[in-house]
């Protein structure tokens, strides 16, 4: 049973001539994730560049100064950063074969991610009530687009974590499959790092 289920998730890779052999020694899927993150860097780079190009160029309010609540967003940024820690703990747990801890830390990571998303939802609605919309000025357009796409990335990550948790609960994620947790972790850490950049550029650097 366990042999047949050794890699129950995402068997996307073609069988190499010798099982497990790759030229670099790195798994295909892990390399795919690294390359995707490289590409995603350019995606966020373009969005952040757009935000920077339009910074301070809105013809009417509200401006960042009118709406931002730095302490509030700092807390939610802290929550997201802590989720990287729990992600590392989840990976350590599966590498040590500790299934219960794996599930606990995966769920915790997902919950922290959801907390961040909830915070973003609350922030967006507050800003909207204060008159900042996608349409009202350049700041609204570029702010909501940039942070919205980041939020979408976090949401994707949350679904991924929940999927891994379910797989573990239904016994389809063995210690040998720690690679899947590792790859999800790469993605999750990347989304965190992007938030550090966004938080600095958008919230902390004064216009």
């Amino acid at each position, binding site marked *: 049973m366990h042999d047949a289920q050794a890699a129950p998730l995402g068997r996307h890779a073609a*069988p190499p001539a010798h099982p497990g052999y790759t*030229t670099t020694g790195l798994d295909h899927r892990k390399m795919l994730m690294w390359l*995707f993150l490289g590409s995603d860097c*350019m995606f966020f780079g373009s969005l952040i560049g757009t935000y920077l190009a*339009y910074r301070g160029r809105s013809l009417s309010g509200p401006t960042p100064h009118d709406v931002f609540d730095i302490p509030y967003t700092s807390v939610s940024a802290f929550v997201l950063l802590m989720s990287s820690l729990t992600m590392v703990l989840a990976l350590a747990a599966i590498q040590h074969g500790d299934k219960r801890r794996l599930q606990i830390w995966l769920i915790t990571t997902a919950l922290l991610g959801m907390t961040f998303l909830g915070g973003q939802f609350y922030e967006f609605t507050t800003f909207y009530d204060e008159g900042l919309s996608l349409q009202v000025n350049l700041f609204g357009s570029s702010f909501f*687009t940039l942070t919205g796409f980041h939020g979408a990335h976090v949401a994707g990550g949350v679904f991924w974590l929940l999927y891994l948790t379910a797989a573990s609960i239904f016994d389809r994620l063995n210690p040998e499959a720690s690679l899947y947790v590792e790859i999800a972790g790469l993605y999750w850490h990347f989304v965190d790092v992007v938030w550090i950049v966004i938080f600095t550029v958008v919230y902390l650097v004064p216009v």
Partner: protein
Amino acid sequence: MATTLTPPQVTAPAPTPAAPQVVAPRPVTPAYHGFTSWLTTIDHKRIGILYGTTAAVFFLVGGVEALMIRMQLAVPNNGFVSADAFNQLFTMHGTTMIFLVIMPMSVAFFNFIVPLQIGARDVAFPRLNAFSYWAFLFGALFMNMSYFVSGLPDGGWFGYAPLTTRTYSPTERIDFWLLGLQLLGVASLAGAFNFLVTIINMRCPGMSLMRMPVFSWNTLVTSFLLILAFPAITVALILLMFDRYFGTNFYYAPNGGDPLLWQHLFWIFGHPEVYILILPAMGMVSEILPVYSHKPLFGYPFVVYATVAIGFIGFGVWSHHMFTVGLGPIANSFFAASTMLIAVPTGVKIFNWLGTLWGGSIRFNTAMLFAVGFVSMFTIGGLSGVMHASVPIDLQHQDSYFVVAHFHYVLFGGSILGLFGGIYHWWPKITGRLLDEKLGRLNFWLMLIGFNITFGLMHFLGVDGMPRRIYTYSPNQGWSGWFGLDWLGWNMLITIGAFLIAVSVAVFIYNVFWSLRHGEIAGNDPWDGATLEWSIPSPPPAYNFAVEPTVRSRDAFWALKRRWQAVEVGEHHGHLTMAGMPTGEVEFEEAHSSEEAHRAPVDVSSIHMPNPSFFPLIAALGLTCMLAGFVFGFGLSIAGAIYLIVAIGGWALEPTS
């Protein structure tokens, strides 16, 4: 000892045990017959054939669009098409030729040739590969579907933003264009990720990067360009989509939106895209010239480093498309300098190609003619390209036919001639039959002459002041009318040249269909090829290599055939001459079997290949419906999203065996 490399028969793999059914009955054995087998195929060779065939069909579509443009412009004050139709024609001619012809035709060769060249059994992610093809096909069809709804897109291939916003382009044409382009982007990215992992991670033992065939090197660099350049246009298109659908202000000048934003984002993608179009053809030519010169590629490391250098510098030249914007002297100087700089690695390659020919024993058959045509025509295009690096000259040439002449010399004289060379070179490997050489020569010369009449004359027309993208002109501007005849002039000659190209393409099409039925049987190695793909049968079996090859030098198959079993690559490589070396299968088999003597003959039925799958097709269809919903109603988007989620779930849970 019997060779293990050319097994006589492909034995069908044993049927696999029934797997849990997810959505629909799964195809569980690799079928190689019938329509369904093409829908579910994940074999890189078949996907390559699908890519190539689709690109060839769109080559005809884009060609007909070009001919209609030329018919309209042949004589002054012509009424063959309306101004509106003309805008649609040049927009879709450019978009089609770039995204639906040159890119997918290159990807067809990536698919078919690269795994064979690096000694792999398939690509790293076969189903992602199939998804890439289906997303490409649906994106192409969706974009052209616009014709039946509100006319073809008409914003130019680079779709400058204030023009393409809802204010100035209120119909759905631009929606089809931008959504279709997003789908094509997804397809390109999926393909590029796949080739990167395949080339980095699936090379056969001994195939270090510096032993890798140059075409595979160019595929590697092109794929890096794809994954790093496409996100920029993805963002540009997302912002345009938000402007058109949700009323954001990115390109809306009354609220401070800046037209420069689109230009920068587009050209940060757009200039690497130029190298995405030319590098594959350069790779093909770098394979063709050595084989027909009977000499290894001159200065292999320099060609490789030049390719990498072009990839890097290609990201630092984009604003030379924007010299007339007025970015200021510092920006203009920087981009002028970087543009001149990128001519250096390109020149390095051209001299290496010449060095390859120098002293070789040259066979001028069709593939070689196209390759030499590529080198000479691309050089002309490159020279006018360096002219445009000079800002004052560029200011004069901007938006004139001189620019049209320049980029057709690099894209047609470069990419298309290179791709034709690649087709003539690898056709026997793909189909098992040779294309006719006489027809091939006719095809080449007609195309070369037609091409030079068409685009060579555009240089003169351009410096004479004829602007791009005008649908007609008056008779007294010097662009028509010689010898007292109203109709005879630059523009009429150009149109005649364009039809000459059409005739050459007709010859090619005849040659293809003739070859498929009556072409001479090619055998494994009709050209005395240098690389591994020529060591296996034509067409290759599903598993490519019965025995995983082991490589000990560059030009591995030549080395085997000539008993070059140099332990260290590069030591003797440059000093030995190929000419006069014995060739032939016997020689190779001996060399091979002595090397592989310790290996037992392989039972090919034991080679495990991944099963075909419906899910790539379903996922691509779901994604297409999601995007199509923006035009046809959001209900379709929701249905598409559900479809996509189901497909991804099935994909993830589908057992591969």
